[in-house]
């Protein structure tokens, strides 16, 4: 069963959106869940969060960081992914909480969107803090604008919105007296860690969507194991969302770097064959 790319769009340099034909995932996917893609026969299995589902297709957003994502980005409308498995993982706990603050960093803004929409539907008042390195990396601004009550944008270099980090904006929000009742944070692990530290200090429940290395994504190998509240959890079946205040972040960050050397080698070899990829 191959899965066709119905639409492809470039959102930012090295960041692509795909609508992949897949009726079944569309039918069952809930906010917070992910899928696993293997592009071709020699490919690896990589997890991607589901951004949106239409009647017959799912939307994912991919950032080029290694060989597999570069290869995905080079695929076009009409091309097919060999394997698409999902929906996987537990859905987000959508409910009425009051004032919800959703915090997205970089390409983590994408998986935050369906959760934000569902939280809005549940009548929450939502502040979104979105951050990226530069203005052009700040994706999905319009869709968040339509959804949330208060949109705060920030870039590392100040090319859009305020200059600085999402954590600085969160501190401002808390200082202004509009303290969130609950937080969702998705983005680079370091970002989720520092948001969680603030949440812990303020005693706010902070859901973070963890992104450890995965192989099968079905609970049969433990590659994605993380320490939460002193216990070993498998992010693929027990998560991927956990209370960020209880996650062993330093361990997670180091586990994510396990294959850095291999990843570098694979990408280099690929780039040598593929030629100039700066257009991506």
């Amino acid at each position: 069963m191959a899965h066709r790319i119905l639409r492809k769009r470039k959102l930012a340099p090295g960041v692509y959106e795909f609508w992949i034909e897949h009726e079944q995932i569309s039918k069952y996917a809930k906010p917070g869940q992910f899928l696993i893609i293997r592009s071709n026969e020699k490919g690896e299995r990589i997890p991607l969060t589901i951004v949106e589902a239409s009647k017959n297709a799912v939307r994912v957003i991919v950032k080029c960081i290694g060989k597999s994502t570069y290869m995905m980005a080079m695929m076009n409308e009409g091309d097919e992914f060999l394997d698409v498995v999902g929906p996987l993982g537990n859905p987000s706990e959508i409910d009425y909480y009051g004032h919800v603050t959703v915090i997205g960093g970089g390409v983590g803004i994408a998986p935050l969107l369906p959760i934000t929409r569902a939280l809005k539907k549940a009548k929450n008042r939502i502040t979104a803090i979105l951050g990226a390195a530069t203005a052009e990396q700040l994706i999905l601004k319009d869709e968040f604008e339509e959804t949330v009550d208060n949109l705060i944008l920030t870039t590392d270099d100040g090319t859009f919105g305020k200059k600085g980090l999402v954590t600085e904006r969160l501190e401002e929000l808390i200082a202004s007296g509009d303290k969130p009742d609950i937080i969702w944070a998705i983005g680079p692990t370091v970002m989720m860690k520092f948001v969680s530290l603030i949440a812990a200090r303020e005693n706010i429940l902070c859901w973070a969507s963890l992104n450890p290395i995965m192989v099968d994504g079905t609970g049969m190998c433990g590659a994605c194991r993380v320490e939460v509240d002193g216990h070993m959890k498998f992010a693929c079946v027990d998560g991927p969302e956990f209370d960020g205040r209880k996650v062993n972040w330093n361990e997670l960050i180091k586990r994510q770097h396990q294959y850095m050397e291999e990843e570098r080698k694979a990408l280099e070899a690929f780039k040598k064959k593929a030629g100039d990829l700066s257009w991506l």
Partner: protein
Amino acid sequence: MSRPKKVPMPELPPHERIVSFKEVALGYTEEQAVVEAQRCLQCKVPLCIQGCPVGIDIPGFIRAISERDFDSGIKILKDSNSLPAITGRVCPQEKQCEAKCVLGKIKGTEPVAIGRMERFLADMDLKACPKSVQRVRKNKGNVAVIGAGPAGLTVAGDLAKLGYEVTVFEAFHKAGGVLVYGIPEFRLPKDIVQKEVEYVQSLGVKFVYNQIIGRTIPFEELRNEYDAIFIGIGAGAPRFMGIPGSNLNNIYSASEFLTRVNLMRANRFPEYDTPVKISDRVAVIGAGNVSMDAARTAKRLGAKEVTIIYRRSEAEMPARLEEYHHALEEEIKFFWLTQPVEYIGDINNNVRKMRCVRMELGSPDESGRRRPIPIEGSEFEIEIDLVIEAIGQKANAVLKTGFPGLKLNRWGYIDADPETGQTNLEGVFAGGDIVTGAATVIEAMGAGKKAAKAIGEYLLKASKAG
């Protein structure tokens, strides 16, 4: 008795095999098989059949070999076993059919090499041009099989032969279960698994990949759409020691390590995209077959020193003797009566050392094996840069949430009738590791056979009632 010993099986020499994933055991030639077949006494009351979980007519196929009537032999085999090329390779025959062989009871005499001859016939069949399979018309009802491991493949094959429309739902992109992700190529070549799966397919069985029932499709949906369901999802979740340092880098479960290599072909990285760590000093915890597989795989990936660490002694080791001998020949080292108590990492969180404690054996526990007890003050450290924990499996986590209403036992496995596979849910059957906990390929197939028969009877009754 002219030949007290089995005709030896040709093997790749150790120095050749540790640099490749080629199959170690090379299989009998026609001549060797015929000579071995002539050792069989053709007992009037064949005890060997009792030792076979799927009840193959063993003297029958052996006689066919001795008469060089290989086609009949294959037919006899396949009547009761849909996957003979696999079972001939991976069954622990010394505990099953060959354990019952009368010849083996005679002092100084080995039992008949039933497994090797089964393999011989099955391989011959696979090499021959695919014969047209007689398909049975599928008009009796439809059955969903969850999991394409040995249990599911057997149920699917048997029910297809009975005339049922069978669809197999598999979580991975390939069928075979442990046969493709667990057992390494050097013990069970993957093209053989593929061919056996194709055989089941040729019977008219449909395979749907990338489906985790209870996750990607609700179980209830299957219950509405199918007349009966068989659950054979295995005991797929790894156990971890859970000692301090368990989440350091380069500590794998055997499932992860073997899946990366066997299913994802990480041994051929970067041609294949999935990487696996290769280290000089590898420790494998546990001494079952999975542990032997992991250790021998690590050696083939280029590890300089591979040590198996086991808390009991050689006598209690659960691995097959044949695999143990292969491991010894491949210079795998063994630390008996040793238990890791802590992993110690470096600044990058990579495992560097392992603190172990020496054990002594006390009185037997409920398994009948002597219980290992730590010796106080015996702790020592060894330097290591990769650890593979092969200490067993537990029930798949999807069971708890994905199969509403299904009764589980206190270990989290499915509570099913051992004779029929019937669960507490009408029309839902289960078998293999998900019922018994981790066991053998052929036991899962045996459970599949019984379940297939029970499902057939259930559907017949249901159709009469309807």
